[in-house]
């Protein structure tokens, strides 16, 4: 068993891959709690796809792909904030327009590259085993930056998420904080590109948070549990990928989904199974008002 666990660590690419997955798993899960609570799943997905043109341009210019992605993500995050700010267009409509346009531009640019299919697959579904030491440092730095910002602005983010009206009456800069959160989300999506890719980032953002929501009653606990689930799915997904030779990003997401399903069914009190049982008990008790219990 121990050799089963340690054997992959003999490879440098696996060490780097595990470390990157671990950071991404935790980061996505923590910011994902806000994504779940604020209903931003669609934005997360849109940001991920909108990054494509940035990557394509960086690729064509032979620059750093992550930096290209970063620039595109921040631009799109601010664009979404700008278009939906005045309330002239609904936010999800603004996102839909930008998301489709950016994705199209990305595919268009990438289709000019000769090795189109392979590169697109890596971008769409991640290539965690191709993480370089430089990528690892950048991932680490961005992870620390995003997590530290979430911790520093904890109470401000909490108020604008729960009650933006109160936030305004407390004279907090609500718009500014909303943009900051979008930028943090954009950074997270960029960091996740290496491990799970554009197509699966949304799952890493939403699934651990949604699972933790069913298990906890306060936001700090929800974040901690989500981080654990994110970390566990990332690591175990990578092992599955190593031993069964399957796509790593997909394996990570499926582990997280499996955990979610188990929790959804069996979470104490809130699980579907207990609710079903409680409902049936109620029905039985009502049917015969005798000492059935």
């Amino acid at each position, binding site marked *: 068993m121990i050799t089963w666990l340690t054997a992959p660590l003999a490879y440098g690419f696996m060490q780097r891959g595990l470390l990157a997955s671990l950071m991404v798993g935790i980061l996505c899960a923590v910011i994902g709690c806000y994504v779940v609570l604020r209903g931003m799943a669609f934005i997360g997905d849109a940001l991920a796809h909108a990054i494509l043109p940035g990557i394509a341009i960086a690729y064509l210019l032979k620059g750093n792909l992550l930096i290209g992605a970063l620039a595109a993500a921040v631009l799109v995050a601010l664009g979404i904030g700008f278009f939906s700010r005045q309330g002239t267009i609904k936010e999800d409509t603004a996102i839909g327009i930008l998301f489709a346009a950016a994705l199209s531009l990305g595919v268009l640019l990438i289709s000019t590259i000769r090795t189109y299919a392979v590169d697109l697959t890596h971008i769409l579904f991640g290539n965690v085993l191709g993480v370089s030491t430089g990528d690892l440092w950048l991932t680490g730095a961005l992870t620390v930056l995003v997590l530290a910002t979430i911790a520093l602005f904890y109470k401000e983010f909490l108020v604008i998420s729960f009650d933006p009206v*109160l936030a305004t009456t407390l004279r907090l800069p609500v718009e500014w904080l909303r943009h900051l959160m979008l930028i943090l989300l954009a950074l997270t999506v960029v960091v996740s590109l290496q491990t799970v890719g554009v197509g699966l980032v949304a799952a890493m953002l939403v699934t651990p948070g949604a699972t933790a929501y069913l298990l906890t009653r*306060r936001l700090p606990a929800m974040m901690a549990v989500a981080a654990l689930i994110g970390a566990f799915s990332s690591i175990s997904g990578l092992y599955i990928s190593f031993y069964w030779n399957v796509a790593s990003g997909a394996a990570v997401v499926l582990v997280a989904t499996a955990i979610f399903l188990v929790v959804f069914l069996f979470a104490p009190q809130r699980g579907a199974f207990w609710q079903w049982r409680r409902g049936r008990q109620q029905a039985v008790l009502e049917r015969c008002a005798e000492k059935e219990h």
Partner: protein
Amino acid sequence: MQPAQLEIEHVSVAYNGQPVLCDVTFHVPHGARVAVVGPNGAGKSTLFKVLVGLLPWHGGRILIHGQPLGHHHDCVAYVPQREEVDWRFPLTVSDVVMMGRYGRLGWLKRPTKEDHEVVRRCLEQMRIADLAQRPIQELSGGQQQRVFLARALAQEPHILLMDEPFTAIDITTQETIMAVLDELRAQQVTVLISTHDLSLAAAHFDRVLLLNRRVIGYGTAQEVFTQKQLMEAFGGQLLILGEGAVVIDQCCAPEAQRRSRA
């Protein structure tokens, strides 16, 4: 006449070019308790949102303590209608009440012992100290209303605005709120409450503001609740019976008002 604590002069508000409030003028003296009454869509919520700086207004001016709105930071607290927030959020009752302190805390600061003390006191004042660690998703409507009021008290405001606090709550909660309002009067806090309940407005408030897009009447309940003015405010929703009895047909907020809240 005492110096006015809250002065609203010739204020108009519009949503997308449609006027919602026209040329509203009234003065609220120091520590007074005012009921804001009017049919659905009369602009009661709009008026409150203007007073806390959530909506812009046209023309005129709003003065608090003789200073323009926005000059005082923590002076006005607003208790919104309960359905304006998502009660499934993973927070405890004391987490929500602590948010009332955030305006005073400032950036990067964590709540101090004093803030926790204020939160505890406000919870006790609302008789919900036993619910402090309860997740908010388990609260009843009346308990939610108490949590919101406790949060507003934690802001230690000079002016308290409450939007429909008496809608669909139990009688104990209503009594608790009335008791707290009496305590606030002792502390000279000015209170404005919008309500559908005209008899409550007449019985427990110093002044009544009868509103329907503009001020129809402002003064004591006896001065304001005349057949003519009620007719003017409520129009077709009013049924005049013999011997001066008046019936107002109004139960749920219509679609238009719900949309204006969104």
